[in-house]
């Protein structure tokens, strides 16, 4: 079994127009910048993108939006230090937004990976984000029914990876990455280093390879936060 691919370009080449794409990371932590930029090069249109945020500056997801690739964002917090890309298109009615509370977003993604089509949560009960959703009372307390959230592809960033797709993450760069690996039909991981199979202790694997389809090595990956602070642009 060898899930490694040699180039970023070939890992994303088959992502079609109209695909739903989960992108890991929280701010710059764990954001797969190189995979995103490879996807911009590939250029599919009409994408639905799932991420906690909606891009910052002129790189990463913001650059996807600038490139006109994104039809809809599903996220919890489409604001940032420089949210121009999303804000301008949103206010112009050119991009759709599904706003989801952060914990509900995480749980919907996890539910998709776990084969749970729906669950109940106290989150958002009584708010406008619960409008139209079924409500049910358990033990005298009202809860909102939420559905799983699946994707065609997930782009994630990890630290170590092996040919079987086992992954570890660096520090808080874990965030949405492990659950997105579970929730997509095809999961593509950029890793800082590919190690031989067996090079990650079985007790220390965070994402077991069963959740990962493609692995590409990106040594010394760029840190999105630093790119943004340097005013970098990807176009």
């Amino acid at each position, binding site marked *: *079994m060898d899930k490694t691919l040699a180039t970023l370009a070939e890992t994303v080449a088959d992502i079609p127009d109209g695909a739903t794409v989960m992108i890991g990371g929280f701010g710059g932590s764990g954001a797969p910048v190189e995979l995103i930029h490879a996807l911009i090069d590939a250029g599919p249109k009409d994408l639905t993108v799932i991420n906690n945020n909606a891009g910052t500056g002129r790189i990463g997801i913001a650059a996807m939006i600038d490139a006109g690739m994104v039809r809809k964002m599903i996220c919890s917090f489409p604001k940032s230090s420089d949210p121009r890309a999303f804000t301008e298109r949103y206010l112009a009615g050119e991009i759709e937004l599904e706003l989801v509370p952060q914990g509900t977003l995480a749980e919907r993604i996890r539910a998709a990976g*776990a*084969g*749970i089509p729906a669950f109940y949560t106290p989150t958002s009960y009584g708010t406008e984000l619960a409008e139209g959703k079924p409500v049910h009372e358990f033990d005298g307390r009202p809860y909102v029914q939420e559905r799983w959230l699946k994707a065609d592809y997930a782009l994630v960033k990890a630290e170590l990876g092996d040919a079987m797709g086992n992954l570890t993450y660096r520090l808080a760069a874990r965030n949405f990455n492990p659950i997105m690996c579970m929730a997509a039909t095809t999961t593509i991981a950029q890793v800082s280093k590919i190690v031989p*199979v067996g090079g990650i202790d079985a007790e220390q*694997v965070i994402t*077991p*390879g*069963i*959740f990962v389809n493609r692995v590409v090595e990106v040594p010394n990956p760029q840190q999105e936060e630093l790119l943004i602070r340097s005013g970098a642009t990807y176009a």
Partner: protein
Amino acid sequence: MMDDIKLSNDQIAWRAAQDIEDGAYVNLGIGFPEKVAQFTVEGREPVFHSENGVLGFGPAPKPGEEDWDLINAGKKAVTLKPGAAFFHHADSFSMVRGGHLDVAILGALQVAQTGDLANWRVGNKGVPAVGGAMDLVHGAKRVAVITDHVTKNGDPKLVETCTFPLTGVQCVTRVYTSLAVVDIEDGHFVLREKLPQISFDELQAVTGAALKTQGEVGDLVVPEL
């Protein structure tokens, strides 16, 4: 006559193993299905999943070298292959229920032409125990059954409707028996292979529901084991 020609359990397991692709993620039910691992096709490396939180386990260790913290769902000591991973039970059944397994192979008391499976309980007596069976039947892209074609009494195990308590509804996609390989499609048994020594009619006679065919029926040919 059929008792003379029917496949042994090893041979049924061998046949089932031929359909497991290289790199497939596979869960083998406790007991008879565990045999399938012994017949992994040369050059293929399936990855075996165990409900108790192991992916990538290998064969049993030598007697005396068991580590009882490293067991499979049947509570037998196993070893690890390179690239193995541990995880907790909720993550383990996320793999199952989430459809991440390629193949689950289970035993059966009865399989219905609808794909319903009964394999956890004979009746209402004694202590019931279900384990992971009801999860596994919904857990894999292919849910296959390996079984004798008939019970010890000669009653069909492939039936129109299960009479034993169900494990799952419309879940089985293929059955490997001691006489045949049968797919379940659109609520029907579709015969794919049968032992060349028996006729279609003979097979139909020991099957509790209609066997359909689509194109040619292959010969079920299995080595001596």
